[in-house]
């Protein structure tokens, strides 16, 4: 796919791929809750990166651009899926129960599963900073760069996201801070 590029470009792209794939897949997987969707989202994002390879001054620019595209593509995927589900639900009432994957079913009741469920219930602007923090392993500055917001704003959003999670955990009787 890169034979019109120089060998240096090919090597740089491969290095970027090796460095970012796992992180991008984790982010896409957590947003979409689907292995197949995450794979497609990440693949499509790399294709877009190749098409725009010349516009990135540095590898970091390409990296943060990729994270932003993966996040946006994954969000678009769940919005599209949500619209499709609404259409199905008009005709098949049982679709509610079928929306969870076998993995979700097996983990139901476990703390990890519950935390994932709480995360999905957070408003998007809080959910995204926490996903990028916990699954993308990015620091506040990097999250700000990806989200296009100030570092201080990231700090506030991460805190509020945690507060909201704590409230949901308490309401479900899962407060880990109270033995």
């Amino acid at each position, binding site marked *: *796919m*890169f*034979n*019109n*590029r120089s060998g240096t470009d*090919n090597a740089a792209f*491969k290095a970027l*791929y090796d460095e970012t*794939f*796992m992180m991008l*897949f*984790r982010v896409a*997987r*957590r947003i979409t809750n689907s*292995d197949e969707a*995450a*794979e497609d989202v*990440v*693949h499509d994002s*790399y*294709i877009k990166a*190749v*098409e725009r*390879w010349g516009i990135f001054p540095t590898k970091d620019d390409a990296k943060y651009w990729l994270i932003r595209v993966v996040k946006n593509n994954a969000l678009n995927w769940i919005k599209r899926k949500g619209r499709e589900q609404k259409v199905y639900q008009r005709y098949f009432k049982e679709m509610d129960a079928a929306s969870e994957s076998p993995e979700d079913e097996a983990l139901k009741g476990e*703390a*990890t599963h519950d*935390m*994932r469920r709480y*995360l999905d219930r957070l408003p998007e602007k809080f959910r995204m900073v*926490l996903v990028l*923090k*916990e*699954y993308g392993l990015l*620091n*506040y500055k990097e999250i700000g760069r990806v989200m296009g917001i100030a570092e201080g704003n990231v*700090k*506030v959003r*991460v*805190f509020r996201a*945690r*507060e909201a*999670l*704590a409230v949901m955990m308490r309401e479900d009787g899962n*407060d*880990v*801070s*109270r033995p």
Partner: protein
Amino acid sequence: MCPDRELLSAWIDGEVPSPWRETIARHLEACESCSQLVASMNQTHALFSSDAALIDASAEPARVRVEERLGFAAVRGPATSGAFWARRYPVPFPVAAAAALALAVLGFALAESGRRNADLRMAVRRAFEATPVATSGMGIESIIEYISKQNSAVNINITLPPEAFGGVSGEPFIVREADFQAGSRQ
């Protein structure tokens, strides 16, 4: 005095610079309520970490598949912008060297051919160039004699003097006048 909870959240993310980082660490050793809050946040972080590890464990097949789909092994050309004449097309060095050599030979042959053609054209021009060989009043006998002396064929233009066409042609005037007189009514 307890630090702000937002600051504690940043502290567990390693986002609090020194010396505040150490100050908060010392405070947590002494404050049960703050340490409980931090423990809660750390527990949340640990749950996310274990979830991330689960995803990592299932990501390897996806990584290989995406790598294959991107075609690192069998490379194809990416979409490039701009017209085809503005793009760069890589040419292997041996092909480029052969093309340059062929161009040089072809150019030399063309130049040599052009030079020879020019010489030929000059020779033909010289051969056909008109050469005045006689003066006016030259008779037909002297022309035949001139041709017989030549070793090769020659083109000869014979220019007649303009006064040759200035005289009266047709029947003599006297005859015509006689005809007129003969035909008149008497």
